[in-house]
């Protein structure tokens, strides 16, 4: 029989199997974030013109791994931890199939290690998008498929856990909002990994020489139904983390569950089609298809974000006003727990994701702006404000929260933890804004040398580009220090933190 305990801090019922699964997925995620973050630092130091650290081969090689480790592996591992947290801990029930969950974990870890090894060995420098006919070793695609199937199994387990919880009477009518948000994330995950299989399996067969070719236009279309839609898994999970962290740290509850839940449904319905904005400068879509895509479908997904932009801060305000901070319009905001890294992380994540990530995403996703922003450094700036300043920072805050609840360890270096979200947030803001500024002058992304050494003709960018790229370097140093502090505190606390009773 499964072993359970009642957490003395939260009153939540926690089962041993679920707890171990959460711990291992989070630790694997943080380890991969550390690797991805280190590669990210090397990227920034190469694009900083006066440093230009890496040679050409290692630049593209580590750029491939930076995307795989920091975007794919860290975030998905953490999301799987969230899946088990929401389906088992929030509902206070057992993990439905812990053995299957361990198989999923082993596949994800195995796939992740395989990709890292095969890329480091060379010959698979295809970057995150791996556009055909740029060819990698078959083991690269195999690693991606193994990782994706592992995470697909884990996402599907969410629904199995819910069925078990319902049968055992853990909930009567509907899921708590945090679990509801993760359910939306799981639905999007299953859809996008379906697309991933749809394109990665033929690409593996092509790379192994079993089929003659994969159409590059079709590859781009199906790849982006995976590549961008998978970022919507991150959005849903991040918003769920915002709601849950606010509940833990402030006792906040959504002002109106109907609004928050409608917003998650809008994400599921519309956000996948918005991913097509990657193809706005491609040959394959017709002019009218491009116009309809940017003017119509995208806005319905944006509406969902606008709803959360109201619901989340409103829930903070209501909770803090209930605590008696009612003087004036903003006393509640001043008296919010800014020294609690779990809260400050989600607050910074919300502001940066909304104002920098979300707004630039909507702008760059329109047909008119796509033509001047496509494949420039501005796009890199955009997605660093969504997945780094938004998702990664929210997950960092959640880690501080679950260290005492799940790992039952106190934070080591609590003073550093207080400043960590601010440092990281400021660092990411500086480097992402600098990337966007450089990109608006046409500086390409994924480019080793913008002085074009060895080219038949040379082109010089506006001189201010040098300043923006140096600013990017400085910002990334700050962010790496902030990220390093997080890795040290989270892994340090897991292994050396003082034990919490309960």
């Amino acid at each position, binding site marked *: 029989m499964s072993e359970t305990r009642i957490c003395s801090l939260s009153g939540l019922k926690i089962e041993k199997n679920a707890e171990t699964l959460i711990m291992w997925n989070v630790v694997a995620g943080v380890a991969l974030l550390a690797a991805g973050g280190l590669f990210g630092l090397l990227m920034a130091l190469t694009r900083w013109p006066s440093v230009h650290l890496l040679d*050409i081969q290692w630049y593209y090689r580590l750029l491939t791994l930076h995307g795989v480790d920091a975007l794919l592996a860290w975030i998905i591992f953490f999301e799987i931890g969230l899946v088990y947290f929401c389906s088992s801990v*929030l509902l206070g029930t057992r993990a439905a199939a812990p053995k299957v969950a361990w198989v999923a974990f082993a596949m994800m870890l195995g796939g992740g290690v395989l990709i890292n090894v095969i890329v480091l060995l060379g010959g698979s420098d295809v970057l995150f998008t791996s*556009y*055909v*006919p*740029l060819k990698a070793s078959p083991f690269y695609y195999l690693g991606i498929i193994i990782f994706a199937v592992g995470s697909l199994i884990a996402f599907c387990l969410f629904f199995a856990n819910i069925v078990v919880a319902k049968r055992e009477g853990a*909930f009567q009518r*509907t*899921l*708590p*909002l945090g679990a509801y948000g993760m359910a939306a994330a799981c639905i999007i995950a299953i859809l996008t990994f379906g697309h991933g299989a749809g394109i990665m399996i033929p690409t593996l067969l092509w790379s192994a020489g079993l089929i003659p070719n994969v159409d*590059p*236009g079709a590859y*781009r279309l199906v790849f982006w139904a995976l590549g961008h839609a998978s970022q919507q898994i991150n959005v849903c999970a991040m918003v*769920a983390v915002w709601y849950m962290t606010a509940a833990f740290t402030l*006792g906040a*509850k959504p*002002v*109106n*569950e*109907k*609004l928050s839940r409608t917003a998650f449904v809008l994400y599921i319905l519309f956000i996948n089609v918005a991913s097509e904005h990657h193809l706005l400068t*491609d*040959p*394959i879509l017709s*002019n009218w298809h491009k*116009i309809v895509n940017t*003017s*119509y479908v995208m*806005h319905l997904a944006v*509406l969902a974000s*606008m*709803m959360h932009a*109201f619901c989340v801060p*409103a829930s903070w305000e209501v909770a803090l006003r209930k605590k008696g901070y009612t003087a004036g319009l903003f006393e509640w905001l001043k008296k919010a727990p800014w020294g609690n890294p779990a809260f400050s992380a989600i607050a910074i994540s919300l502001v940066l994701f909304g104002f920098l990530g979300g707004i630039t995403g909507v702008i760059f996703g*329109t*047909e*008119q702006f796509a*033509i*001047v*922003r*496509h*494949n*420039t450094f501005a796009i890199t700036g955009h997605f660093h404000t969504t997945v780094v300043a938004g998702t990664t920072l929210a997950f960092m805050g959640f880690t501080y929260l679950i260290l005492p609840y799940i790992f039952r360890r106190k934070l080591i270096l609590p003073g550093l933890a207080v400043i960590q979200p601010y440092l990281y947030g400021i660092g990411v803001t500086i480097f992402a804004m600098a990337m966007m500024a450089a990109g*608006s*002058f*046409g500086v*390409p*992304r*994924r*480019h*080793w*040398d*913008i002085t*074009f050494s*060895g*080219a*038949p*003709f040379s*082109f010089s960018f506006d001189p201010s580009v040098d300043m923006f790229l140096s600013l990017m370097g400085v910002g990334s140093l700050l962010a790496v220090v902030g990220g390093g502090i997080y890795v040290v505190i989270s892994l340090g606390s897991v292994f050396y933190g003082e034990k919490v009773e309960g």
Partner: protein
Amino acid sequence: MALKEPERIWWKPYSKDERLWISVALVWMVISFLFMPIYHLVGSTNPPSETYTVTNDQFQGLVDKMVEQYQVGEEKGIPVVHPEPGSDVFLQASMWRWYPILEFEKGKTYRVHLSSMDLQHGLSILPVNMNFMALPGYDYVITLTPNKSGEFHLVCNEYCGLGHHMMVGKLYVK
């Protein structure tokens, strides 16, 4: 709380604040929704385009024919062509060059055919900063009317192997 199952009836009517917020967002979105198709038609940001499939040999043939017919010079071993205004112009992307160098007349319209011979390449026309994708097997026809004269550079902005950063071409508008 977001951590607990909501109370019996959670689908309460929206409050005044919520209705106001959603209405403002919706009105804003309807305006953008209408503005984007309108701007596609009245603005000059997005040139009209068509797409056909093509084989490498066919495209190579068309490029060679154009170069033979309209070559006016040569720079760094790459021919400079001055095609007739209004005609079909062919721009070939391959690892790691844009071929040939094109010379256009200001205010005249050209049908620029773009295709790649090997990997995916990104055509970035600088400093105006217009970007298009060149995919192998596809003939992407973009109708361009240059409205500024001068010397433009074509930079590849999609990773295409180790010589990616050396893939720079030229375009003149006289």
